[in-house]
Each structure stands twice: as C-alpha cells, then as structure tokens.
C-alpha cells in the first residue's frame, strides 16, 4: 500500500511504487509512440521517434543512479544523431520520405556511391553500439525486466530498419512480394535487435569506463558518417 503524500515524513523520498509506476508508464508510452511512427501507423519526422526513445530512456534512468542516468542520456543522444545520418542521406527528416526513397532506390546501406553507403553503415553501427550501452543499464530483474529489454531492443531495431533498410510493405497487393518485403523488414529488425539485446547482457558486466568509451566510439562513428555524407552529397 502506498503512503499518501500528506502522510509522508518531511524528508522522505516519494514512495518507490509511485515513482516506479511513472517510470514504467513512461517506458510504455515511449514504446507506443515510437512504435506508432515506425510501423507507419502515423506519419511524422524522425525526431518524433527519438521522442519515444527518449521516454523509454527516461523510464530506465529513473531506476538508475546519477552516473548511469548520464550514460543513458548520452546513449540516446548518440542514437538520435545516428538516426539523423540516415535522414541526412536522403535529405529527408520525414519517415514517409525515407520509406519512399528506399522503396524506389533500395536500402540506405546498400545504395551507392560507396562512400555514402559506408556512411550509412557507420550510422547503423553507431545505433547498435549506443543501443547496447542503453540497454545494458541494470534496470530490474526477472521476467518483466527481460521482456522490457527485449521490447526496447525491438523498437531500436525497428528504428534502425526503418531508416537504414526501408519500407515493410511494397505498393500493390502481390502476396509473394509483400511476404518477402515484410520478411526482409523483420529480418533487418531482428538483425539489429538481437545483437543489441544480446550484447547488452555482456556490456552489463563491463566497467563504466568501457561504456563511456563505447559511447565515444559510437558518437565518432555517427559524426564520421555525417561528415562523409556532407563531403559527398
């Protein structure tokens, strides 16, 4: 039973149950918001997806101490920057425009020239590294925590697949093509989500300095990708 606000002693922290409910609620809202945009239910800009991811990060950070919260914040910033590399590739911040460009020309990571493709791979690598660090934070234990981590990994995978791989469903109703496209999209999502979630368990045991080093590396990769794009496009 939670303690009511009026009955708290003057210097007591808010009850963990209340704060935890807010944190988990924010994570759920973040998954829904980011998922809604990434599944194409709502059209909008990449920054809206980042907003959903940021809510997830907020929910995680509430459970963490100051140092971990800082790591979480930087990881989200790097993730956002890396998604921006994909947007920069097509000069489009709208998800619809990104999907459209990739539907016509092919997945961002596979479309040349080679330096542009390399830039996209660098952005994708930055997303994976930042995602690993983000999910490696010690937030809860047991099945609920595992499920939450898996769900958040899928959202990160979806974001990466949407920006760097392309649309799920082609125009028209041809069953074979649709199944192939959805399958490819799911594979692309899984190809990011599985390593992100899996490696996050390994990274959870790493020292804090290594996490910071990984974030610096991810940031450098994203910045290099953006610079490469800037020099070519």
């Amino acid at each position: 039973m939670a303690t009511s606000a009026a009955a708290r002693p003057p210097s007591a922290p808010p009850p963990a149950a209340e704060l935890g409910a807010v944190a988990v609620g924010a994570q759920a809202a973040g998954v829904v918001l980011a998922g809604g945009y990434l599944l194409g239910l709502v059209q909008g800009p990449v920054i809206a997806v980042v907003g959903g991811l940021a809510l997830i990060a907020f929910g995680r950070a509430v459970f963490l101490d100051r140092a971990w919260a800082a790591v979480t914040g930087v990881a989200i910033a790097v993730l956002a920057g890396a998604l921006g590399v994909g947007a920069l590739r097509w000069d489009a911040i709208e998800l619809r425009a990104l999907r459209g460009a990739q539907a016509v020309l092919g997945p961002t990571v596979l479309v040349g020239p080679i330096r542009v493709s390399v830039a996209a791979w660098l952005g994708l690598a930055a997303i994976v590294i930042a995602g690993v660090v983000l999910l490696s934070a010690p937030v809860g234990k047991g099945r609920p925590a595992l499920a939450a981590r898996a769900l958040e990994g899928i959202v990160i995978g979806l974001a990466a697949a949407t920006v760097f791989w392309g649309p799920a469903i082609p125009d028209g109703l041809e069953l074979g093509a649709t199944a192939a496209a959805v399958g490819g999209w799911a594979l692309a999502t899984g190809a990011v989500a599985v390593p992100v979630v899996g490696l996050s368990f390994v990274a959870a045991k790493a020292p804090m300095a290594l996490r910071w080093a990984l974030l610096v590396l991810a940031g450098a990769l994203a910045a290099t990708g953006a610079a490469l794009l800037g020099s070519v496009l």
Partner: protein
Amino acid sequence: MIPTLLLGHAGLALVLLIGGLVPRANRVLLVRVVAGLGVVLGATLAVASGRTETWRTAQLDSEHAVLAGVTIACAWLLIAALDRDHGRWDVAALIGVGCTGIALMGTNRWLVPGLMFSFVASFAIAAAVSTFQHRGEVWLQIFATGAAIVGAILVDWQNTESWVSPGGIEGWAFWLLAGGVAVRAGALPVFGMWRLCGCSAAAGAPLLVGSAFIVLGGPGSRTEPWLTVGLLAASAVVIAWALFVKREGDVAGSWPVLVALAVSFAAPGAVFGAGIAAVLAVSAAGTGLHDRYAGDPARAFVVAFAPLTIGFSVLAAGATVAFERATGATTDAESIPWTAAAALFPVALAAGLTLASRLSRGAGAARGRAGVTALTTLALFLAAAGFGLFPDTLGQLPASALGPQRSVLVLQLVALAAAIAAGILTFRTGYATQHLSRASYEPVREHVAIRTLPAWPAAALASLLAFGGAATVGWLTIEGLRVGFL
C-alpha cells in the same frame, strides 16, 4: 468583454487592497479565491483569442493574446499555490496589476503603448518582490532587460524612422534586444527570478518570461541560426552543470528557457508555442524546483519538455526546421550553423529527459506543502499536455512538427492510455518497489550557496535603469502622440 479580460486583474488587485483590512485567516482564503478568479480570467483571455473584438488599442485575435492569457493564468496559479498560509495580499495585488500590464501589452496593436504597459508590469513585479531576499538582483534583471529592450527599439526607430521594422529589428540593436529578452526570460541560471522559487513572489517569474516572448514575437522576430546554436550549446552546459556540479534544482530551470529561445530564433513562427512552453516550465520550476526535497515527475515532465507536452512539440518543430534548412542550404556559411543546430536539438531532447529522471528522483516535498504543490504541478502538466495534444491551437507551429494532427492525437492518446495501464499494473504488483528501493536513492547533495549580488549596489543600478527606461518610454509615447501615431 475585452475590458473585463484585460482590466479584471487590476480589479482583483483592488479587491485584495480592501481585503487587506480583514483578519489574517480570512485574508488567506481571500487570496486563494481571488487567485482562482485570476486563473479563470487568464484562461478565458487565452481561449477568447479567436475572437476579432477590439477595444481601444487592444485586439484579441492574435497568438500574443494566447501567450498573455497563459502567462497570467500561471502567475495567479503560483499565487494560489505559494501563498500558503501567509495571506500576502500585497504581493497578490501587485501581481494582479502586473497581469493587467501584461494583458494590455500582449493584446496591443501598437508598439509604444505596449512598451508602456510592459513597464507598468515591470514596476508592479519589482514592487511585489520588494520584501523578499535577493530583491536587488531581481530588480536588476527586470530593469536592465527592460532598458535593453527599450533601447533597442529606440535605436531601431531612429535608424529606420519606423515604429516597427517589418522583418524585426536590424543591426546591433537586435543583439541588444536578444540579450535583454534572454536574460528577462531567465536564461541566466541562479540569477534574479530564480532566487524566488518556492515563495509567492515567484509569481512574477511567468510574467517576466511571458513579456519576453511577447517582445520576441514582435520586434524580436528574426531567424538567427548562430544564436540558436549558441543557446542550444548553453542549454547543454546548463545540463552538465546541473548533473555534475550543482544540484539539479538549483540551475535546471533555465534549461527550458534556453531551448525555447533557441527554437524561437530557428523558427520564428513557433515563438508563441515556445513562449507558452517556457512559461509553463518556469511556473513549474517556480513551485519549488530548488527545494531540497522536490522530486515530482509531473514537474519534471513540464520542465524537461517531455514528449506529449507542448515543450516537445516545440522542440520537434525546431529540429525539423533546422534539418530542413541544413539540407536545403546552398552555401557553407548557411549550412554550417543549421547543421550544428540540427545536431544539437536531439542532444537537447536527450539531455532534457536525463534531467527529468533526476528531478523525478529527488525526495518528496515537505509535509504540508506536498498536496498543494503536487496539485499545482499536475495542473501545469495537464496544461502542457493539453497544448501538446492540440498544437494547432497555437496556430503557427510548423505543420509537419509531429505529423498529421488527428493521427498524432490518436497515437498520443493511445500512448497515454498505455502509460496509465502500465503504471497501474506496476503499482499494483509492487514490481518497482523491489528494484527502486529507498536505499537506491543517492544521498541528496547539499545546496551549494551561489553568491548573490550585493543588495544596495544592485538596487541602485536597477533604479537608474528603471528611471532611464521609463523616461525613454515616456519620451517615445509623447513623440508618438506628437505625430498622431497613437
């Protein structure tokens, strides 16, 4: 109807003036009732802004009126929340006068009368804080920025021989104006109005922020990418300072102001949304962000521009505009600042959410304050979420900020429902208590006192600036009357 909406706050101030004679217990009740009426009047002004009524030099049909209405409602809300049992009718009455000044300033079609009413509001706020500690610093903030704004307008008028330049103020006068607006809105952490958090004089803070953004929406309206970059960089410094050097609550309040200003200089069309987001955030901070025991998720969401609130819509608008300008630029000189801004906006978003997590984890409010403060921050959160869910009510936010209005609304409502369901489930199962135990709280860091400016020199300088500013506004008014402009 307009006279009631604009002058009603001064009428409420008169009621308080008379009410000062009644016993203290009744005064407390009177202040609360009057503050409640003030909130209703302010909210009505914001809602009524769709009408095309005019009265003298005032006109309702503008975003200025929405911003003014929200500003006024927030000021009265803070009076209701922070007066506690003191019954400070004098502070409430002066804030009421300030509210009328802001209402007349915000709705005015003419620049010079607007400035005159702005100075009336400034003097009222200065008087309201006169019995509080650190008043010298607050006076300096009010009158130095007032003088800067008036000075900039005077210089521009002399250069262009026009009362309002079509594209906003040009030349070095713009930088004077921008500096004045930024400091007036609270961009400097721990200075001036930030000293008032938690006491009833904090009700002056939203009035200062609102007036700053009203000016920004008029003569200060200009696209300035380097300024956006500078403000975003400053917001990152504030976050780093808050997380690693000071306690969060000591400096965090200026973060939303810096970000809102950055958006205003990136996308002048979003200035009113940015102003409303900043006013709500400063009001939330004013309820006691600096308190040692100030953990409050609702306040944290408003201050940190969390998704679903108007702050996030504004931030997304800024990011979208910066990205589009960066990719559409044809020269390096144009591209570099916009690219930097486009990169910094997501950083600001991440930083804000990190800050929010820390502000949520602070220990709870002291007994007796918890209920009222929590209700106030909840009201501010609901207002921020309301504007966030219906950003089109603000008129000029870029249409593509978050996507098509209706589908975004549905998605946000579903997200809210999911959040509530997950929260209830977590609360009932007690899952969080196993992992977020009281022991996991880090020790609250002691407040590190930040040296204040000496009271008398600050007050003397503020008086000089007040005199200079008021004299200039008076001269401009006479000049305006002379040429038949008014």
